[in-house]
Each structure stands twice: as structure tokens, then as C-alpha cells.
């Protein structure tokens, strides 16, 4: 007799834990062939708020870590993803890709993590500057993370778009609340498990599943979210995001990139979520005038 397969329960990821939605609701997205993908959490506004609280709590520790440490952790995520390649390929195929497309998407996602792992301790050197002010001051500008970033992913790719936005946001020291693809949520939940086993501190990445239309507004209006990465490619959604985020002047970054292209990984995806801080420091000016060495 064939062995009966154990089915997986897909849950959301908040503050390093895997709760069910507080609302107790679910939805059942289907594959291209009409098969049910599973009972997926239909997260609520309250889940969004809980996720933002967790992200804010994690921000201090994550943003103050050595850039090198963040680099090692992003590399570790890639290592973990490489080890679970088959699981992701299987899910991607279940959601509708063919085997070749699925393999390609997983491999691109791994390499993208490696790309941004490399940036963690380098973007400061490209984005920063020493400014030759006319007075006797040492004046320099450096990058600091914006804070809590909301990430709204698009349905086109399930894993790659997720990784392509999470990686630059956390590489830059931000924490985030991610709304997974409504139609193809499986990889997002499984990716949370990868993050969970990769030395990423709880709360740095929080992932919610559910209906975009229900969750997007509470996220955009939340006063403790500093920026939003918008990958919806939807004019109306973008308009709504820009309008409803005025409360705390959220930085809205909207993308229309083909994530499968190499060019879609870029330093600017990191700098989009950085503030610039300039420091002035006096320079004493005594002696040395006759030093000719």
C-alpha cells in the first residue's frame, strides 16, 4: 500500500514565530489546473499591526549589527535555500510553472541573495561621501536604514519577487512586513521557514498571507511604517498607496522590473530604503604650517 502523504499547514510568520492569523479565517487559492493549493491564512488588519510591532522591535538590533554580520546572515539564507531547492521547485511547479522554469526561479533567487549579501558591507562606501565644506569642519554623509518597510509583492513570480525585494531591504539594515502574493502564497510561507533557520533574528522579516485589498490599506496608513516597496504594478493601488501614506510621509517606492533579469538587482534597491545622515565635526587648526615633509 502507498504511504499516505503528510500535508503541510501553511501559517504566517510574525516576530520569529509561526502563528495562525488572529482572525481564524482562511482562503483556498487554486493552481492553474484548478487544484487547491491549501488552506492559507487570511490575515487581518490586526495581524498587520502585530507584524509592524514585531518589525519595529527587531529594528534596533538588526540595524546596529555590524554590516559584516548582516552580510554573513544573508549568505546563510542563500545556503539554506540551496539546501531546500527541491521543496521550492515542487511548490513552484504545483503553483503552475514547468520544471525548468521552477528550477531557474529558485537558482536565480539563491544567487540574488548572494548578490545582496555582498552589498551589506559595501553600499556605504559607494553611497557615502566626505564633503569638502569651506569651513574648518570634517563633514561626512552616510546611509542609515529608513526603519520598518512594508513590502507588497506581485503575483508574477512567487519566490523571486519576494527575495528580490526582501534582500535589499534587510541588507540595508531595515526590517520589513511582507504581504505575500495572494494567488501564489506557498513559497512565501516556506521562505519564512528558510529565514527562520538562517540566523535571521525574529521580527526582521514578517510575512503575511491574505487578500491584498484588505491588508494594503492598514499597512499604508500605519504610522510606524517608514516606507513601502510596491511591486503591484497596478496604477490604482499605487495611487491609493501614495495617498493613504501621507500621515507620516512614507517613502513609496514602486517598481516595474523583470526580476528574472540580471539588471534587476541593483544598488538602488538598497539606497531606495536609506536615509542620508550628514555629520559636522570641527577641525582645530594649530601648527604644522611649516611642516614640509
Amino acid at each position, binding site marked *: 500500500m502507498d504511504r499516505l502523504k503528510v500535508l503541510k499547514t501553511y501559517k504566517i510568520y510574525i516576530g520569529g514565530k509561526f502563528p495562525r492569523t488572529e482572525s481564524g479565517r482562511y482562503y483556498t487559492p487554486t493552481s492553474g489546473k484548478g487544484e487547491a493549493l491549501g488552506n492559507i491564512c487570511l490575515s487581518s488588519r490586526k495581524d498587520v499591526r502585530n507584524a509592524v510591532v514585531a518589525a519595529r522591535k527587531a529594528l534596533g538590533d538588526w540595524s546596529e549589527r555590524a554590516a559584516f554580520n548582516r*552580510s554573513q546572515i544573508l549568505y546563510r539564507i542563500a545556503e539554506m535555500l540551496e539546501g531546500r531547492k527541491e521543496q521550492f521547485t515542487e511548490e513552484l511547479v504545483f503553483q503552475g510553472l514547468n520544471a525548468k522554469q521552477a528550477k531557474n526561479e529558485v537558482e536565480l533567487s539563491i544567487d540574488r541573495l*548572494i548578490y545582496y549579501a*555582498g552589498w551589506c558591507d*559595501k553600499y556605504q562606501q*559607494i553611497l557615502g561621501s566626505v564633503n569638502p565644506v569651506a569651513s574648518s569642519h570634517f563633514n561626512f554623509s552616510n546611509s542609515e536604514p529608513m526603519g520598518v518597510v512594508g513590502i507588497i509583492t506581485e503575483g508574477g513570480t512567487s519566490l523571486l519577487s519576494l527575495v528580490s525585494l526582501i534582500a535589499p531591504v534587510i541588507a540595508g539594515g531595515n526590517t520589513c512586513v511582507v504581504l505575500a502574493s495572494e494567488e501564489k502564497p506557498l513559497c512565501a510561507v516556506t521562505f519564512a521557514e528558510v529565514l527562520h533557520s538562517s540566523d535571521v533574528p525574529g521580527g526582521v522579516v514578517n510575512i503575511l498571507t491574505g487578500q491584498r485589498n484588505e491588508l494594503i490599506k492598514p499597512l499604508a496608513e500605519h504610522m510606524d511604517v517608514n516606507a513601502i516597496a510596491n511591486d503591484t504594478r497596478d496604477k490604482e493601488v499605487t495611487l491609493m498607496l501614495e495617498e493613504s501614506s501621507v500621515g507620516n510621509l512614507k517613502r513609496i517606492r514602486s517598481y516595474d522590473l523583470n526580476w528574472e533579469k540580471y539588471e534587476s538587482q541593483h544598488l538602488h534597491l538598497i539606497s531606495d530604503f536609506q536615509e542620508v545622515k550628514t555629520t559636522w565635526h*570641527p*577641525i582645530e587648526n594649530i*601648527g604644522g604650517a611649516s*611642516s614640509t615633509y
Partner: protein
Amino acid sequence: MAKKKSNQIKWDYASAPESTGHIQLKDRYDLFIGGKWVKPSSGKYFDSINPANKKVIAKVAHANGSDVDKAVKAARKAYDEIWSRISPAERAKYIYRIARLMQERARELAVIESLDAGKVIRESRDVDVPLACNHFFYYAGWADKLEYAFPNRRVEPLGVAGQIIPWNFPLLMAAWKIAPALAAGNTIVLKPAETTSLTALKLAEIIKDSGLPDGVVNIVTGFGDTGAEIVNHKDINKIAFTGSTAVGKIIQKATAGTGKKLTLELGGKSANIIMDDAPLDQAVEGIINGIFFNQGHVCCAGSRLFVQENVADIVIEKLKHRMKSLIIGDPLDKNTDIGAINSKEQLDTINKYIKIGLKEGAEMYQTPCDLPKGGYYCAPTLFTGMSQSSVIVQEEIFGPVLTIQTFRTVDEVIQKANNTPYGLAAGVWTDKGSRIFNLTTKLKAGVIWANTYNKFDPTSPFGGYKESGYGREGGLHGLEAYVKLK
């Protein structure tokens, strides 16, 4: 009444030696050429000695001209056929692999480094090896981002790089050389110093394990003659050398007119300046670290101490007191602060300078301690009462010997600190931020530490002004040494 007993407490530490049980060393090492272990064509091997007990650790091949030629040919082939053709992102992944494998074998590398170089395990374990791993990790990330480092330029690799490294930080110097060269897309022929070949050879094993294509990194061991064969080889595009200024000058002469790109990281006589408003206890720790770190075998050692006159007495008193608590002994003991001098040759050089200092009339202070028997050791040494023109003030000693001079004004100390043919590093100790920047602006040195000393990081460029060499290693600037910009 009973006889008065001495109630002095003995603070000696029990010995805490690091185990050598887990390290794997062969009795004899061949040359690493084209991904294989190749016997030297001369059939000659030399001894690698543990300077703490003068025992032979392993025999190492002595490469001659024909071996170097073989290595260059292997590097050229790997460059033409593989390394210059694979994508930068794949290049990055190879370098990350090397970094990870090094991290996995970090303890073994640290123990071998201490055995072979006489350096204390505390430093090889906590400084040399982690920094070496991190250097690979850092430069791995640059491989596919070079266009950001040089905007509006087309970035190309140079080809085959010849790299010659010193004995003071054997594995770390190998990392400083290999990592950026690989990231930029070059292939390599590297020669470690003759007294400290072993960790470079262990690195060759790691490189082999990483699956890096054969011939991308070749490691040839030997003496100065082997180095000269690399410098003079016609099919090498780049020479990177770390070592003495005297040899650096010979190399510049030898490569003149050949079109070989050259970077030199040479000697130093760095000033460590203590202003009267400095936190003195902290400064004393900085002085100790500046000159006694790695037995003073540090090109950027803070070997010339300048103390503002009004605090000179107290600083020197605190310094002598602190020196008494330094533990000199077995490099493998976790409590040891100062290990063995790297070789007999270097010990002779240091002793020569100590004699010169005494002859010049300077006053010497050495820590009262029993030096361990059976190895090459030198007690931490201070000199006071020299003039600016004294030989021990002007020349690099490369050992645990500090000269102390005083000054009154900022202007005076800038003059004195800059009065040297070298310009590698400097230290400034003061409570006043604006004064730090005044001094860092006016001191002619490539690296300046403020209220700290001997700090290194893969992201931070290192290298000298003047006769301390040219080019930078580390950071974004370190890439420039290994690229052709069009």
C-alpha cells in the same frame, strides 16, 4: 612572635596551552601548481621551524626559476581558458566558498600559524585568522560589483599577478593579496615567506577543496631567489609585494619599464602621539598594543612614542607598570601576551638595534622577567633620551622595541612625527575631537588611528605614504591594485 612571613600573593597563571591534536600537517610540502602538488625541480626542501622551540615542523619545497615558470604558465592557462571567461557572479561564489572553508578550519589554521610563526594563539585565533576569512568574504562580494567601484570606467583584470608576502601575518597577508586579485578576475602565483610557508600551503589545500579551477591560484615556496624569479618573469602582469623598504626598492627597479603594475606595502616607523588631555590609562593600553602586538613584527607598529612633556613621567611610569604584567612565553598558551621572535635572523637584527641604542647613549628599560629557554625571545624594551636623529628613532626595528620622545606643542609633534622617510601609520590620543582631526589632517601617513591602534578591517584601506610604499590593500580602494581601467 613568629617570623614575619611574606604576604605577597603570587598571581602566576596556570599554563593553558591550546591543543595541537586536531591539526593536520604533512612532513613535507611540495609546490601547489596547476591544482596539483608538484615536486620542486631542484629536489630541494628546506625546514620550517617553530621559533618557540627551534624544532622542525615540516619540510617545504624550494622553488627555482623553472618551477616559477611552470606556475606562471599554469596561471596564464587558467586565466585565458577559464577565469577571465566565467561570469563575475560565479567568481564571487568561488571566493565565498574559500571564505567558508577557512572559517570551518579556523582553529586549525590558528594553531599552525602560532606554531610556525611564534605568534601568540590569542592573536592568531582572534585576529589573524578571522580577519583573513573576512577578507575573502568581503572581496567575494565585489567580484560582480566592480562597475560600482569605478564608475564610468570599463574594468578589466590585469592577467597573472605575482604576489610576495612577509612572515609577520602569514595567512592574513595571503588573504589580503589573493582575495582582491581573484575578485577582480586575475590568476595568481603567490610566494609566502620562507620562515612561514605552512598556512599558505594549508590555504592551498582549502582552495583545492573549494573546487576553484586548477591554476587560478598557484603557491610556490622558497627564499628571496624564488621571489626574484617571480618579479622578473616576463609573463606576469602585476607584482604585489609586502616586506621591507629595501627589497621594495629593488623590485621597483627590476620592474621599471616592463609595464608590470606594482603595489608595495613596505616598512614604517609610525608615531604614536599622546596629548596631555588623553585618557592616559587607555592610552597606555594603546601604546602596549601599538608596539608589542605580534612581538612588534608589525609594519605599522607604533614604534615611536611621542608624549606631551607635562604627562611624560606619569605615562612612562604607567607604561613600565603595565609592561610588568605582560606574559612572555609559549605562543600556544592562551594566556601569553608576547610570543617568540619569528626567526634567529630577526632576533639578531633586534639585538643589533638594542646595542646601537645603548651605544648612542639612550636609556633602556626592559621588563624584568625570565625569558623562556630554547626559543627566540626578546623582552619588551623601552628607550628614552634619544635624539630625533638617533638610529633607533629613524630605522625600522620590527621588534618589541619602543622609543619614547617628548614634545611641548602640537606644532612640534607634527614636525617630529613627520620627520621620517616612512609614512605608513600614526596614532593620536586626545580627548578633543577637533584636535584629532587637526592631527589626522597634518600627519603624513596612510592610516591614522585616533584613541585606538592596530585596528584592521576588510572594508578599510591600508597602505603608506612616502617610502612605506604605494597602493592600498583592503576596502574599495584595494581593488584598484588589481584592475585595468579603460
